[in-house]
């Protein structure tokens, strides 16, 4: 007996409307994502990588095809539930003006997250931050965090909400190698501890190598899946030609 994959994307077509002209990004594309799996998503700018991630949490509507999460169509979930289960980390995280603690605890005020266990004491929060490599006082103002620290805080905020899948939209772009490695380590640890899965948009091939993950490449408006080795080889060949 084979169990359902965590996420199943079947024959999905994605379109965007820009200046009142429709443009097809992906045509009838499919892939699957299982528990404890990391998939790197690569492709040229504007090829639809972010739109693909957004369509999984219905921040963008697919024009065709089916997206199933845990064997059930994403359309059957309420938006808040879907977005709590499948967390999305944008390229540039946004926070409210305020302290680290306020920003970490804010999501628990939302109706969807009220049933989750709210971290009820400051020691728990501090430990959580520490495992995410952020050793700042809880009353530290978020506007004073560096780019790398902001990404770590954003990741800490998401993992506190206990998602099943994390979608990452180039979280390491613009970060120095140390900060970038930090994010990679956190994500790997999160995956091992929770049996969660990750979709990760990236440009940097070195990140791909460090993650040792399979690759989804957007080519000619479709998704093609590679193992890491075969992807790197195919790129070498293209460069040689």
């Amino acid at each position, binding site marked *: 007996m084979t169990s359902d994959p965590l996420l199943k994307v079947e024959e999905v077509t994605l379109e965007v409307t820009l200046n009142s002209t429709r443009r097809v990004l992906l045509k009838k594309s499919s892939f699957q994502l299982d528990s404890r799996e990391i998939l790197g998503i690569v492709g040229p700018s504007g090829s639809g990588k972010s739109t693909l991630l957004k369509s999984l*949490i219905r921040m963008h*509507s697919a024009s065709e095809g089916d997206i199933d999460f845990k064997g059930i169509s994403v359309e059957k979930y309420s938006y808040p539930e879907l977005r709590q289960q499948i967390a999305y980390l944008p390229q540039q995280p946004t926070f409210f003006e305020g302290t680290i603690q306020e920003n970490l605890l804010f*999501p628990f005020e939302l109706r*969807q997250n009220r049933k989750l266990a709210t971290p009820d004491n400051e020691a728990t929060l501090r430990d959580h931050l520490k495992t995410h490599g952020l050793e700042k006082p809880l009353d530290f103002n978020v506007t004073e965090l560096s780019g790398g620290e902001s990404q770590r805080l954003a990741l800490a905020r998401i993992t506190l909400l206990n998602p099943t899948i994390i979608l990452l939209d180039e979280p390491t772009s613009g970060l120095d190698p140390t900060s970038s490695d930090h994010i990679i380590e956190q994500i790997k640890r999160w995956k091992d501890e929770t049996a969660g899965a990750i979709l990760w948009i990236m440009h940097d091939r070195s990140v791909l190598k460090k993650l040792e993950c399979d690759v989804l490449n957007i080519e000619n408006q479709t998704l093609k899946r590679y193992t890491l080795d075969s992807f790197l080889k195919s790129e070498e060949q293209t460069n040689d030609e």
Partner: protein
Amino acid sequence: MMNEYLQLTYIDILLASGFILVAGIVSLVLRLKFEKTLFVAALRTALQLLLAGAAIGFVFDIQTSWLVLLLAVLMVLLSGREAVRRQKYKLTGAGWDTLISMFVSSFLVAILVTAVVIGSDPWWNPPLFIPMIGMIIGNSLNGISLALERFLSSCKTQRREIEMRLYLGATVNEATLPLFRDAIRAGMTPMINAMTIVGIVSIPGMMTGQLLAGADPRDAVMYQIVVMYMLAASTTLGSLMVVYLVKRRLTTDHGTIRVDF
């Protein structure tokens, strides 16, 4: 005698036009080149008000309820158009939301005031109902425009904050709640400021008018209090409605807010 009401004659108006002459001389001496505009404006003041007076005299004599209501509807439509024209953001359908909000807020409050608070019989008695709803419309218009503009502009400027809340599991209502509150506050603020300073810094036009017409100051004050409260209610209701309707209009069927206006 305090309550003596001095009727003005056309001779008095002619005398008063001497003030316009003063303004004209200033314009001539300083070469403001304003004489012509000033003259036309002064003439328009007299003509428009005389016409309005004649119209009001005619309206106040109407004894048919539906005619009075029709006139009130017309007043809402005309000022609603003005509110839409003034809007900085062109959002398709927002004009309807503005009109509906103006409509409901002004009629509801005007009818409550004339029928229940003042207890006029009939409640649509033109000399009471028409000036009351006129005042309400003017104030609602202001509150609704302010609330709408604030909401639309913060949807644009706070787009990332809204998205962040949605990503973290917020409903559209939860994600826009801070903007919603802020917009209604923006709509209500001028009215609350007016209520705070009334009688200290300014004596409202309606009260001045009643006093000049020889009304007992106590009566004029009581009316003014009712009017202020009524305006507070209608601006609040109008702001609330317009922001609610526009928020619904901007909510997409996939649980996001669109900002393509």
